[in-house]
């Protein structure tokens, strides 16, 4: 035992403020808070729909309150950040072999972005006609 051990002082609550890489990491993790809250709201909207036209119309009206708009704007930014961080690491998660080689990473990422665009368009049209 050394008598005077070196103790690195790292704050357990604010350690991620030290550099940009950590800040990007913690922002990506925090995206889950917004996505979770948003999904809880979407789950409750299914209840409202089941409760009848009055409950549903009140829910839809509530969407245009300033609080809801600010929350959804923030949640949209975080959800987009989550999606990009998720798709950017897909080559690490899925290594696809083609013959003797692996499919190049940028190709896998690009394929995900294209599919993301298609799915997003479908959702926009779907909600648009609803």
């Amino acid at each position, binding site marked *: 035992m050394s008598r005077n051990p070196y103790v690195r002082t790292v704050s357990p609550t604010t350690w991620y403020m030290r550099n940009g890489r950590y800040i990007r990491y913690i922002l990506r993790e925090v995206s889950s808070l917004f996505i979770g809250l948003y999904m*809880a709201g979407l789950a409750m909207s299914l209840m409202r729909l089941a409760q009848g036209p009055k409950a549903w119309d009140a829910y839809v009206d509530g969407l245009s309150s300033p609080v809801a708009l600010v929350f959804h704007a923030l949640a949209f930014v975080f959800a987009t950040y989550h999606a990009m961080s998720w798709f950017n690491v897909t080559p690490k998660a899925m290594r696809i072999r083609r013959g003797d080689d692996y499919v190049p990473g940028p190709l896998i990422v690009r394929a995900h972005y294209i599919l993301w665009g298609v799915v997003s368009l479908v959702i926009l049209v779907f909600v648009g006609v609803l």
Partner: protein
Amino acid sequence: MAKSNKPIVWGLFAAGGTISAFCVPALILAHGLLVPLGVFGENALSYERAKAVIGFFPVTLVVLAVVILTLWHAAHRIRITMHDFGIRNDQIVAILCYGSATVFSMAALMGATAI
């Protein structure tokens, strides 16, 4: 061999992460921003159409899959993130995270089956 529930937890986390990456930004943009800003017109999200379309069985299934998997994804990530913020009482955090994901999943399920 030691048994672990990690593959299940992680598998659901990854599934939810993927499905939310594809769907959630557009969902928020469409019904959280464009509808209230009036882009889709005055009668967007009308009760009759929402009931008919979301109550249509295949659509109900897709909506439920997106909601429940995304809730699980978020719950798991929030649990891990609490550790990053210095909250070390993992057991309570886990119960709160997975517990609320379960409660809201049940709400979605109950709502969807009653439409």
